[in-house]
């Protein structure tokens, strides 16, 4: 039973690690700034998932929730700033 449960957790960890590596390489290659934001969102999802999968306790769940909400607020600020910078530089031409 114990070996079976560790094998299950290894499988999920492997899937999430492959997703993270693929997404971060694609984010590094892409040059368009607004195209990068959905890839960053997938990385946030994966990290919030791996926090709870590695630590199955109430503190792990609370850490995952706080991480995901703060990361979403930061992504909101980054997208707003990209839009605002485009406006400012477009007006100055």
């Amino acid at each position: 039973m114990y070996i079976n449960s560790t094998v299950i957790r290894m499988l999920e960890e492997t899937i999430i690690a492959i997703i993270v590596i693929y997404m971060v390489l694609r984010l590094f290659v892409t040059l368009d700034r607004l195209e990068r934001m959905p890839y960053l969102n997938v990385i946030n999802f994966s990290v919030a998932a791996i926090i709870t999968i590695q630590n199955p306790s109430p503190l792990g769940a609370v850490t995952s929730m706080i991480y995901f909400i703060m990361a979403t607020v930061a992504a909101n600020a980054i997208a707003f700033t990209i839009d605002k910078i485009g406006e400012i530089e477009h007006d100055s031409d």
Partner: protein
Amino acid sequence: MEEIIAIFIAAVLSWVNFVLIDIWMGLPEAPGVKGAGAIGKSIEKRGGDLGGGFFSGNIVCSPDASAGTLLASCAYYAFGSPEGGLIAALFVYFGNRICADPGYAGTSGALTTTILIWLTSFIGIAPQNFIVGMVLAALTIQGLYHPVTSKLIGKMARKMNRKVIQDN
């Protein structure tokens, strides 16, 4: 092999759950904040659909039913009982209010996910399968190829009577 089948079933269930709730709560209609509109227009410029672009931008910029599904399955797995889904609904509601959103989509997504996991636990699908399934579902929406998925979301939104409202 059984775990791979369970993860696949959980991925399909959470995909259907969060896409249907997000479209029904009107995410493809209008961008909630300014950055979501910019992401949507960028996806439309690269050959996608405007409604699907607003959907994707709203998911990036505020925790909607996708975050509700992920955090409810995380809390169900960590607390070990359906009470975790209720706690996750409370946290997602506060996070939505921080991000300038009314918060209907995230809360209803968390509650429906709790009911869904409680029902599928009788046929042997564990909550950790739902966590990985939600990451796979977010990958298929946000990560693979934006024009095709945004056209698919736009077609579903037009079928569910949630068209894009042009206000600006």
